[in-house]
């Protein structure tokens, strides 16, 4: 009998401890509403913490007690996927990175639509940035930035080579200028990523290319994509103005070191890359000038909207309205958008703030870059940004670009650019 009793006790102990693991949260009736926010980027957390402080000042009757948790990138996305799938354990608010976003739009979406908040301000926003986080007319994610692709020139090298960066209008001009740089300084004009997409994707987007069509069909082997990949191949091996990025991509330690050392003439990356310059390449302070990207065709676009993170409210929150209001305050309001620039150095998606005086007040970004008016440049190119298509197949397409196309065509040259694109497109079609 004793055995049965002991067993019973053990079972009860197990059962009783279950709610502890499930993290049962009780609804609080008074006091500030407790909310959890997950992000994969510690900088993003500072923005939300600052915003929460401002919110609490402005809304004494709707206080928030916000806990920001910074998780590793992959960890956050897989935990969230499981939490939303199983219906327990998700935070109230969470950052989802663009290339993962389609995973959370499958089936019955477990996120709260933000339409009522978004529709109030959409005319002042870069709408394409909201559309990438939407499905069936519902807006779910709120963006951090436009991610306008720009080109960063090392003015010291350009001056030494006698290149006038303002005279570079098309990629053809850029290649010519590159030849001059290589001839006079011996340094490559550019580095091309072979394990990530930030050299390739903005260029195809400039020409109206993309990985996917608006309906989600494969567009990897489009004419524009072929032209751009061939152009990059020529930059590396025919015109010899570029080299493969040390470490494979522009976030590698090897690259930061070499660029900081003044080994390369320029780099094209989205605006959010500014923070990498200030934090990882301190020796280039005052030497980097930002310009719009060269055009792919005469009269073509000079920028592209790249990358991003959509912040969402999950359907597991106990304070739906409050969470939505707070998120809209942090991401959609003018104040929030100013803070996106001052704390994060991102180009905020609400363009109506781009000419506010606060955007030109000195901060670590204006101090670092040789430009007088970074936002003037953004206003100039804001209508030259094509939307990007983010649908269910995007994670696969992006993976093929990163692991196969660029590596095969540009790095190891085991396939011609056209063959690499065609093969990847065939893989995509087989999977769709």
């Amino acid at each position, binding site marked *: 009998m004793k*055995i049965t009793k002991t067993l019973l006790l053990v079972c009860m102990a197990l059962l009783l401890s279950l709610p502890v693991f499930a993290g049962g949260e009780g609804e609080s009736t008074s006091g500030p509403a407790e909310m959890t926010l997950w992000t994969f980027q510690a900088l993003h957390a500072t923005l939300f913490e600052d915003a929460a402080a401002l919110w609490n000042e402005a809304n004494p009757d709707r206080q928030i007690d916000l806990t920001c948790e910074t998780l590793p990138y992959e960890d956050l*996305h897989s935990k969230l996927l499981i939490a939303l799938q199983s219906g327990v354990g998700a935070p109230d608010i969470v950052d989802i990175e663009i290339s993962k976003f389609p995973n959370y739009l499958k089936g*019955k979406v477990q996120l709260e639509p933000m339409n009522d908040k978004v529709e109030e301000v959409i005319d002042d926003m870069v709408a394409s940035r909201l559309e990438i986080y939407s499905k069936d007319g519902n807006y779910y994610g709120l963006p951090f930035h436009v991610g306008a692709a720009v080109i960063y020139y090392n003015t010291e090298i350009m001056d030494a080579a006698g290149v006038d960066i303002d005279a570079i209008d098309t990629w053809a001009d850029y290649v010519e200028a590159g030849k001059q740089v290589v001839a006079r300084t011996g340094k490559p004009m550019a580095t091309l990523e*072979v394990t990530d997409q930030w050299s390739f994707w903005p260029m195809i987007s400039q020409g109206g290319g993309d990985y996917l069509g608006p309906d989600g069909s494969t567009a990897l082997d489009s004419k524009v994509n072929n032209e751009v990949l061939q152009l990059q191949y020529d930059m590396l091996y025919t015109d010899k103005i570029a080299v493969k990025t040390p470490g494979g991509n522009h976030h*590698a330690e090897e690259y930061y070191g070499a660029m900081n050392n003044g080994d390369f003439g320029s780099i094209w990356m989205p605006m959010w890359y500014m923070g990498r310059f200030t934090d990882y390449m301190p020796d280039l302070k005052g030497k980097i000038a930002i310009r719009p990207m060269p055009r792919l065709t005469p009269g073509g676009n000079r920028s592209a909207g790249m990358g991003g993170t959509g912040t969402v409210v999950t359907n597991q929150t106990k304070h739906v309205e409050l969470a939505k209001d707070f998120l809209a305050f942090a991401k959609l309001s003018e104040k929030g958008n100013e803070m996106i620039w001052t704390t994060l150095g991102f180009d905020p998606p609400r363009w109506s703030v781009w000419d506010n005086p606060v955007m030109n007040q000195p901060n670590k970004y204006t101090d670092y870059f040789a430009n007088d008016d970074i936002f003037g440049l953004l206003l100039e190119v804001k209508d030259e940004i094509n939307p990007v298509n983010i649908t269910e197949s995007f994670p696969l397409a992006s*993976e093929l670009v990163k692991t196969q196309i660029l*590596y095969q065509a540009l790095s190891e040259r085991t396939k011609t650019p056209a063959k690499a694109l065609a093969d990847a497109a065939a893989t995509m079609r087989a*999977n769709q």
Partner: protein
Amino acid sequence: MKSLTKKQNLAPYFFVAPFIISLFIIYLYPLISTVIMSFQEIVPGETEFIGTKNYRRLADPTFFKAIQNSVIYTVLTISLLIPVPMIFAAMLDSKSSIGSRFFRSVFFVPSLVSVVVAGTIVRLIFAQADTALINTLIAQFNIEPQNWLHGTRIHAMFLLLILALWRWTGINIIYFLSGLQTIPKELYEAADIDGASTIQKFVVITMPLLKPIIVFVTTISILGGLSMFEESYILWEGISPDNNGLTIVGYIYRKGFQHGELGLGSAVGLVLLIIVVFFNVIQLFFRGFFKKGAEV
């Protein structure tokens, strides 16, 4: 009296109960639900059975490459991680070795280091820059700096093997040392009287008597090799060029979590289970594990 016997009959069940219960909760339940999930398309709120579609989708060159990588890795790690630790263990066990206690600890330390830390350090040691440690070293021998991480398939496998060798040698030495200590010393004494050399003693006495340990280490190496994930994940952050570092578990992770296709991930997991069982049955068969009355 009768009730006492009854109690005694119950006792064994009681003692194995914790194991049985944990087996059911931790292994059997997930296994069964993986089987079910592998026939489903799993999306929140709209999960449905889709027959064998997940299995048909496994006819994917990327998956074949992952299997290839895992199998090559397993074969190579076994061919390194049996002989090398065995020789080291024999050396450490020999009375004539100096500082054997010290070296035992030294060999074991790597297995205490988190693979994340080790992988990150390996990544930096083998970085692409000409100033990276390994590239500086090989420059002394007039070898061109190599693009280790983003080079060819051979580069990728080489890095994985280095990491495995560094990490697992110590553990396998412990297994072999414990095996060596069970070998009666009289056998060596007899061999000495017969005038056998050290190498002869190793081949004729040590190796055959270590057979149970070799079988055990091979079995866990097959499991470990085929389920390897962390090393490759840390070195390439999940994206290795041309999938040169992709393993089967890496593929599960990619499909299940990175592409959000848990059903397909489950199907891959079951295929992995079948592969692991297959390899282990083969190796146990060849080592005579299934022979009647075989002593292993």
